[in-house]
């Protein structure tokens, strides 16, 4: 890579290969059709090609690659969740993330920073201790750090006691990292396209062909799009905020509410904050990107909307809390703001695996925790689509769990009140 840079630097013209070659018209039929060209869909296509040698795959994306939630999150990667199911699953994802730059031959700027979840109350300290013990049991670096030590580790924060929520301690997770999120989508997409997967952008799914629907939910046989109908052996839907609408086309309902999650970045500053700092009580998370921008997010919007608009309420609320942690940034300007449409489940855990429709699989319920799960989702979805078996890591997240009253209760999720 550095030699290529040198070579192109010395020549006047350089040609950049097209990462997503236009596949042309839709074929009449594909073995596997993936609805949704976000990180999860592209990662699934990538691992189908790489791990299983299956390349008769179409990824259908209504917009463009990287335009959805993959490019709208705050790019935090961690595995210090609360439930054993969640911890094992996200730990595998972190493990895969570490190798992605090599796998793609493309730098995703994976940067381990250390992740601190602040505790401001005795009950929060108790929960952090609980999380640390669950994490350690599964071999994950995670520990409770009390205020005096924390002050040495993250000296940038305001530790005074005359604030609304004084800092008592934090859950410290050393492997907590950030990455360049659009590079993750591009890397998976380009890798899949290079191996023969067709990535169709500007292709909207308008319905499904389902056979034998008498008495049961039937079997999917085709996908209708604005560019024509294609036959499909198996279908995976991975469409985040649009999950309810797409599932309705396939004829079933989901336990999801689509709620916007807003975020923003500041103007670039000299590097001063190496840690990723999160506070559940204050509904704040902040990290400094490699460009020097502070990447900031808060809680999801108070009610559901299918929009990616930004509101003043959100920024006022977020800044009020953020300035309690970092008072010295009060003169810093905001540079950009945006929102993504999250699909929230009642137990803050995802929905993965089989659906009432045969050969129709789902990857949904990714709320505010989808980006960090991208590699493991791709890997497990690919395995499921290739072999028909639902792996142990994703078994607990089956849609069936709601019918069995067997919820996961993932209270380690971000941006949600507990």
């Amino acid at each position, binding site marked *: 890579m550095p030699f290529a840079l040198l070579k192109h630097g010395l020549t006047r013209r350089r040609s950049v290969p097209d990462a997503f070659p236009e596949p042309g018209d839709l074929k009449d039929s594909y073995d596997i059709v993936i609805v949704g060209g976000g990180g999860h869909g592209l990662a699934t296509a990538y691992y189908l090609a790489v791990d299983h040698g299956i390349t008769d795959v179409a990824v259908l994306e209504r917009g463009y690659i990287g335009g959805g939630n993959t490019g709208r999150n705050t790019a935090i990667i961690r595995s210090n969740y609360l439930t054993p199911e969640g911890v094992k699953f996200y730990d595998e994802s972190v493990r895969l993330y570490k190798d992605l730059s090599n796998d793609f031959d493309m730098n995703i700027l994976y940067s381990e920073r250390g992740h601190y979840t602040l505790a401001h109350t005795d009950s929060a300290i108790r929960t952090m201790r609980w999380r640390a013990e669950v994490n350690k049991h599964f071999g994950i670096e995670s520990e409770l750090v009390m205020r005096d030590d924390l002050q040495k580790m993250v000296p940038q924060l305001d530790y005074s006691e005359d604030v609304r929520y004084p800092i008592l301690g934090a859950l410290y997770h050393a492997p907590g990292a950030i990455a360049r999120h659009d590079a993750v989508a591009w890397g998976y997409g380009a890798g899949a396209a290079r191996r023969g997967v067709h990535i169709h952008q500007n292709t909207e799914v308008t319905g499904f062909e389902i056979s034998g629907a008498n008495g049961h939910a039937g079997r999917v046989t085709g996908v209708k799009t604005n560019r024509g109908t294609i036959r499909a052996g198996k279908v995976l839907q991975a469409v985040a905020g649009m999950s309810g609408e797409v599932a309705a086309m396939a004829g079933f309902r989901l336990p999801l509410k689509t709620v916007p999650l807003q975020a923003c970045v500041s103007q670039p500053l000299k590097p001063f904050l190496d840690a990723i700092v999160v506070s559940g009580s204050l509904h704040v998370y902040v990290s400094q990107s490699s460009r020097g921008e502070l990447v900031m997010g808060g809680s999801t919007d*108070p009610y559901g909307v299918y929009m990616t*608009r930004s*509101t003043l309420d959100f920024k006022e609320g977020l800044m009020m809390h953020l300035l309690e942690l970092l008072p010295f940034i009060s003169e810093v300007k905001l540079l950009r703001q945006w929102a993504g449409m999250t699909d929230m489940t009642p137990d803050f855990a995802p929905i993965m695996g089989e659906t009432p429709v045969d050969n129709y699989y789902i990857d949904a319920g990714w709320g505010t925790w989808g980006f960090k799960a991208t590699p493991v989702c791709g890997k497990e979805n690919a395995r499921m689509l290739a072999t028909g078996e639902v792996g142990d890591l994703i078994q607990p997240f089956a849609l069936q769990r709601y019918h069995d009253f067997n919820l996961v209760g993932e209270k380690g999720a971000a941006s949600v009140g507990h």
Partner: protein
Amino acid sequence: MKIMPCPLNGPRNISEFSCGGEVEHLPPPDCDHAQWIDYVYLENNTAGIIREWWYHTPTAYWFVAERDTRTDEILRTWPAGDFLAEFGEER
């Protein structure tokens, strides 16, 4: 800030309200398992015009609003009693 036209208090900042979810039928007490799951967990999650319960927190007042979830426009509101009288069973 966005304004909610409350049937009791008039136009107020939307931060004074909480959303109570889409209006739906409470299943009968002797309903089967599937109906109960449907009521407790499953959502229409409609991208379009929906009717939903809203609550004005300072005055502890429940009412129904019609809202377009694609544009966040509030189209109409009813006091709960008027809504139930108008739509009764078919809501």
